[in-house]
């Protein structure tokens, strides 16, 4: 049902204190992880581009982020005259807070290889996460949709058109990918049967088949990874800060510590999204499978090591995306979201549901639940194929009709061609007009 065990029997002063300690600890961990993430990204991107990257401040350049932060902190904080002051100052915090709040849901340690992931301190049994909300996944979705406010309001309140354009883009993108994100999550919920992150991790512990990435059939994971990258506004979905089109994007007018906060929020979001992927699809702190020969110590820090290792893989993948994929064009972005990811995850959810009903023997086409499963699989595949071909047929017809209509327009409006020619004549090639001018001057 969710909730720390120590909260189940009323709340006393110690419980409140423990909760506060967890909040502070999580905040510190989150900040340190973010700092390291900035360093990690710069270092990995450098190596992928055959450069060295930061290597001066501290060992391996680890303190580079700190140095940058201190520098930004002492720079002049400029607030444009035409901005909406209050909202302008509020926006960076609005983008930071949801990132951290999502992180509070993630179980980062605990022994899941045999235990239930709880540890005990001062006689209080707790989980290694700040809050195990009963509606955890919904809370995650809610927070990821709240994250957009920071960007939107920053763009609007700057009182400048490029940031505004960026924020309009950002909100359209976030809403488009929110649907794919939610639908791929629905597959996880179907398999897990619970919304609480702790219980989802618990349900995945033990073997490879119970890992959600396997149990949901890989497709939701891929959709989630793509949609998650889009939600983060990271490359190749970083149209929000496309320098070539929008100057700096939504934070063009920001400087000093507020700019640093946006920067921080972006990387905190990245870490959080990686952590959520690990939690939902790869069992978080639980081991991937039962190691046959080695008996790992059953302790909370083992979970932390596992979690961190998995997280690192996904952070690397995010950086890898950034280093190797070119930015999508806006229509490609929308096509990918609406025409591919949403139908795909919706269809997959339906098939997954059918399979699970058949597997539990609730359909009864044949006596055998495996037979039922196969029948459902075949039927589902057929329906999917028919649906896909109908969509393709409709797309093809629509395209040919559009072409025909455009052809008709061109025929019905013959002066389209002439007006272009007339344009050309009046402007003329630069040389020609120059010549005439010369002639006129001569006379």
């Amino acid at each position, binding site marked *: 049902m969710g909730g720390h065990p120590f909260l189940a029997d009323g709340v006393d002063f110690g419980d409140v204190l423990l909760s506060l300690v967890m909040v502070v600890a999580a905040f510190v961990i989150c900040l340190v992880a973010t700092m390291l993430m900035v360093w990690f990204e710069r270092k990995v991107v450098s190596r992928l581009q055959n450069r060295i990257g930061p290597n001066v401040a501290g060992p391996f350049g680890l303190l580079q982020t700190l140095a940058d932060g201190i520098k930004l902190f002492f720079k002049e904080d400029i607030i444009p005259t035409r901005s909406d002051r209050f909202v302008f100052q509020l926006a960076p915090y609005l983008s930071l807070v949801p990132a951290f709040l999502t992180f509070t849901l993630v179980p980062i340690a605990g022994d899941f290889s045999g235990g*239930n992931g709880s540890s005990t301190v001062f006689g209080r049994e707790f989980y290694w996460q700040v809050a195990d909300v009963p509606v955890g996944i919904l809370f995650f979705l809610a927070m990821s949709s709240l994250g957009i406010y920071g960007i939107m309001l920053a763009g609007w309140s700057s009182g400048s058109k490029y940031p505004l354009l960026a924020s309009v883009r950002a909100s359209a993108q976030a809403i488009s990918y929110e649907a794919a994100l939610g639908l791929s999550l629905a597959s996880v919920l179907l398999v897990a049967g*619970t919304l609480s992150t702790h219980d989802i991790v618990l349900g995945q512990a033990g073997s490879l088949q119970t890992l959600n990435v396997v149990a949901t059939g890989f497709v939701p994971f891929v959709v989630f990874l793509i949609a998650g990258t889009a939600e983060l506004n990271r490359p190749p979905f970083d149209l929000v800060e496309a320098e070539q089109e929008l100057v700096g994007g939504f934070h063009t007018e920001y400087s000093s510590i507020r700019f640093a906060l946006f920067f921080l929020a972006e990387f905190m979001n990245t870490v959080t999204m990686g952590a959520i992927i690990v939690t939902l699809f790869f069992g978080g702190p639980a081991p991937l499978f039962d190691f046959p020969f080695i008996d790992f110590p059953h302790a909370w820090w083992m979970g932390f090591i596992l979690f961190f290792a998995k997280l690192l893989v996904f952070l690397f993948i995010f950086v890898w995306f950034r280093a190797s994929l070119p930015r999508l064009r806006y229509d490609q972005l929308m096509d990918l979201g609406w025409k591919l990811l949403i139908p795909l995850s919706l269809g997959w959810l339906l098939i997954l549901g059918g399979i699970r009903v058949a597997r539990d023997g609730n359909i009864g086409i044949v006596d055998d639940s495996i037979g039922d499963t196969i029948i459902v699989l075949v039927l589902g595949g057929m329906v999917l194929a028919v649906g896909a071909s*109908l969509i393709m047929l*409709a797309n093809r*017809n629509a395209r040919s*009709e559009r072409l025909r209509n455009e052809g008709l327009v061109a025929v019905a409006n013959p002066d389209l061609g002439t007006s272009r020619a007339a344009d050309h004549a009046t402007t003329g090639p630069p040389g020609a007009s120059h010549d005439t001018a010369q002639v006129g001057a001569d006379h």
Partner: protein
Amino acid sequence: MIGANLLGSSFGGVLAQIEQTPFVRPHIDWHAVAPELVLLAGGALVTVVDVIGLEKVRRIIPSLTSLVFLAAFVPVLTLWNQQGDLPRVMWDGAYVVDNYSLVLKGLFLLSGYVIVLLSTNYMLEGDYYDSEYYQLISASVLGMLVMTSARDLVSIFVAIELVSIPAYLMAAWRKRDLKSNEAGLKYMLMGVFASALLLYGMSLLYGMAASTKLTDIAAALSIGESKPIFTLAIVFTVVGFGFKVSAVPFHTWAPDTYEGAPTPLTAFLAVASKAAGFVALLNVVIIGFPGQADVVEPLMWVLAAATMTVGNLIAIRQTNIVRMLAYSGVAQAGYMLAPLAVFGDRPGQATSAVVTYLVIYAAMNLGAFAVVIIAARKTGSGEISSYGGLFNYAPGLTVAMTLFLFSLAGIPPVGGWYAKFEIFRVLTDGGSGAGVSLAIIAAVNSVFAAFYYLAILKQMWFMPAPDGDHSRISIPPSLQAALGVTVFVTIVTGSVLIGPLSDITKLADLALP
């Protein structure tokens, strides 16, 4: 499964926490929901065919839609035939198929069919987005079908929104015309305002009954003395529905919307959409509020009297026939509200009077709109003066219009008089002062109404054609069919078929708990 087993063996305690009470699949009587399902499947089919075929299938979409309506009518008939199984109750009483709902389902499906007939040429010749229009019409009619059977607040609210939201959009369908934009916008703004009031009333009802089912609400409202909160909830709910049925003083959207919207859609709004509002009102008032008749009846008395009087008085001054029909529709809504002012003693009789009125009103009003659409094909105008000389060049059409106007005015032997007669009978049967006084007001209003109906007759029969153009009107087959159906129903309901009709609508007594 393997995972669950493993979990179970290692820490059953946690699993017990995760385990839920098993979900019991509700019993679904597929035959009873067949009309809705057929319409749903048909609407989906129309959409898919349209999306894939595009321009190539544009001409068959209206025929396909009308076939869908007729196909959905078949299960209504088969359900009607199995009288022994009625009422079929599903989902713990939240959805009921009984004679009342079957009569109305049939009414809505046939109205939808006639609307499609009226729309076919209009949509094609006006070069509007026509396939999408038919999809929206089927969605709206689906909402009406759900409404007839809905017996809990959530279903009623969703159904009324399913009826209204496609209608808001269709009212703005003539995009190039500012009047149509205005129509859609006014309708939507007033509609969502009404929905907000309705929802607030419903939330109060739910707060008192802790259930959304109308029967539970009736029980909660019947115990103890009346509280202000009951009145508040009832007023909000009734006012919300008042907007939907365009009762005075919540009628202000109607004339502009009716004038600006595409004319077939105006017919749809004036007949089907309004009827759906009445069905919702009947369901909620008759099933949900019988314990609070003291509150509802005076409210309905005032609404009915104001609606019929104001509607008629303004209708007299209209020069545009669509606006005139709009205000006459407001007045007609007043007559239909009247039985609810005395429903406390005779809920069954009041219900069947309203249902009778709805059936006859649908036929005569759709017919009048058919004539308006046909005449506009030649004159291109909605002004009453443009009807001059109609008898000279379109005698058949003039006779049909005369029948419809007689019926609207309540002159025997065509349908309208019987509808009014039923209303008067309900009002006067109890002999209560409120009922009799309302009957007198209704009678005075009927006389008023005859004025403006007769004014049109005068134009058609005796006046010369304004532009002297006496060329004949060509009536396309779909409009001929629509005219035929409506003329037939209007005539028979007032004369030869009164007996069977009254049998059907008597069966339609809600047979209340």
